[in-house]
């Protein structure tokens, strides 16, 4: 059994390294100079430099886009939690015959492909003067994440034993007090993981940010798209900007992978 396990392990490592090679290569390239980045054959050993990172900032104002990404993802997450948490709470603790149908209906709104709503959302944003505004992005991100958030919070709240709540109600706790003193401490984990997943999804969102934003409200996803050409010829800068755009969220993602399965499959896989 032992040699077999070692062999399997070796195969698993090789396959994994091949799969993540593009990312490793991207990271490596961001520490090269532009000339080293396009050397033939590709350069594996070189003296790393940090100057490209500074150049990305001065040339394309990385921080402006990073701020937009941060604002849109944090704001849409908080707004989403504010709308979804009460709804999930209501469904988990005041069940009625219609709760299930309501939940299924909410999930069904997520099934609409984004492109189906592109035209009306674009026209609405244009009419309201909200094209290329953070507000439009925050609203759209919130709406498209809302079903996932309601579902994740609902399944988290459902696991809180109702006896605890009944005891609190006997002591005369009102709904708000009940939520604050009884549910919140117990549900912090669910709230945190839902928020985390929502941050990841909003940060990486590309469809809406490409279509609704430009220089002013552009997120990092849009900034990177602008490297398509001719800036894309500068591989070191493209790599450095990309690395700075994905590093924080990939690390976040590692911590939220369990929630990802739950959230994206709506709990159909346990």
């Amino acid at each position, binding site marked *: 059994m032992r040699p077999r396990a070692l062999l*399997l392990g070796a195969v698993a490592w090789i396959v994994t390294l091949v799969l993540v090679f*593009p990312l490793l290569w991207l990271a490596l390239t961001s520490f090269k100079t532009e000339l080293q980045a396009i050397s033939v054959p590709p350069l594996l050993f070189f003296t790393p430099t940090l100057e490209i990172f500074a150049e990305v900032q001065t040339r394309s104002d990385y921080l402006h886009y990073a701020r937009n990404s941060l604002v849109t993802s944090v704001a849409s997450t908080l707004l989403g939690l504010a709308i979804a948490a009460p709804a999930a709470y209501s*469904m988990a603790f005041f069940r009625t015959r219609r709760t299930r149908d309501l939940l*299924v209906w909410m999930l069904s709104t997520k099934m609409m*492909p984004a492109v189906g709503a592109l035209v009306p959302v674009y026209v609405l944003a244009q009419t309201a003067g909200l094209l290329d505004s953070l507000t439009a992005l925050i609203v759209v991100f919130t709406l498209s994440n809302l079903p996932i958030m309601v579902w994740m919070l609902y399944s988290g709240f459902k696991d809180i034993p109702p006896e605890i709540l009944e005891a609190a109600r006997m002591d005369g706790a009102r709904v708000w007090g009940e939520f604050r003193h009884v549910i919140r401490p117990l549900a912090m984990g669910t709230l945190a993981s839902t928020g985390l997943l929502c941050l990841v999804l909003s940060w990486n969102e590309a469809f809406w940010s490409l279509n609704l934003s430009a220089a002013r409200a552009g997120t990092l996803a849009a900034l990177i798209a602008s*490297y398509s050409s001719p800036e894309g010829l500068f591989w070191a800068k493209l790599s450095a900007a990309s690395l700075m755009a994905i590093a924080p969220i990939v690390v976040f*993602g590692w911590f939220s992978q369990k929630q990802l399965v739950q959230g994206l499959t709506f709990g159909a*896989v346990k």
Partner: protein
Amino acid sequence: MNRLVPRLLLAPAVTTLLLWMIVPLAMTLYFSAIRYNLMQPGEREFIGLANFEFFVTDPDFWPSVTNTLVLLGAVVAATVVLGVGLALLVNEPFPGRGLVRVLLISPFFVMPTVNALMWKHMMMNPIYGVLAWVARTLGVTPVDWLSDHPLSSIIVMVSWQWLPFATLIFMTSLQSLDRDQVEAAGMDGANAPQRFWFLTVPHLARPIAVVVMIEMIFLLSVFAEIFTTTGGGPGNASTNMAFLIFKQALMNFDVGVASAGALFAVVLANVAAVFLIRMIGKNLD
């Protein structure tokens, strides 16, 4: 009081989602029946099904339907087959398994525009790219991936992104596979392929169905990868439904025709959604 409070708590979420569903759909239905071009102010008269006719007879229409389905089918097939393989591979303990799992998941958290440009430039460039170097090392002529095989290149990028998702779900599901049962089957003389076919595959049937349907929903709208790399070309070789609708709406400014196309995409997606929702609905209690 006892009935009012829960309803009030529900109201914001229900209202916003209701608006999010009904308003775009109603607007799309309306736009699809009128003449409406953002660049031609004037009367928006009712023109019946003319927008649909225009969209369907566009020479890019059938290629885009085919491309959408090929892209969807290829990515789903690749991610399910490779995903099951990978999940089985990392299911047994070996040194550094924790780290391997974390690394394997990483591509899913990479934003689509980074994914696309990384592949377009650093990997697939016919002169400076890593794949070109590999080809030359092996003594083969490097391929200009994005010009000669645009759709296949997009398939590689999207599969690379979604393979971790499939793997993660299969890994999660394999953890609940009854190990005693597998061992007992082994004792009773079932060999490895038999154990895989009669125990693992049935166990994975549900997660596979879920992966297929979730990918269907997301992959019908693949956009950023095409937008940043091929721009739908050369010609219409890598134009899918989402990109064609985008082109009609934001490049030709024809809201009416784009809306007709959007309705088409919604119908496509809903076929998948009906099944998915039925499966999830059973799982709620």
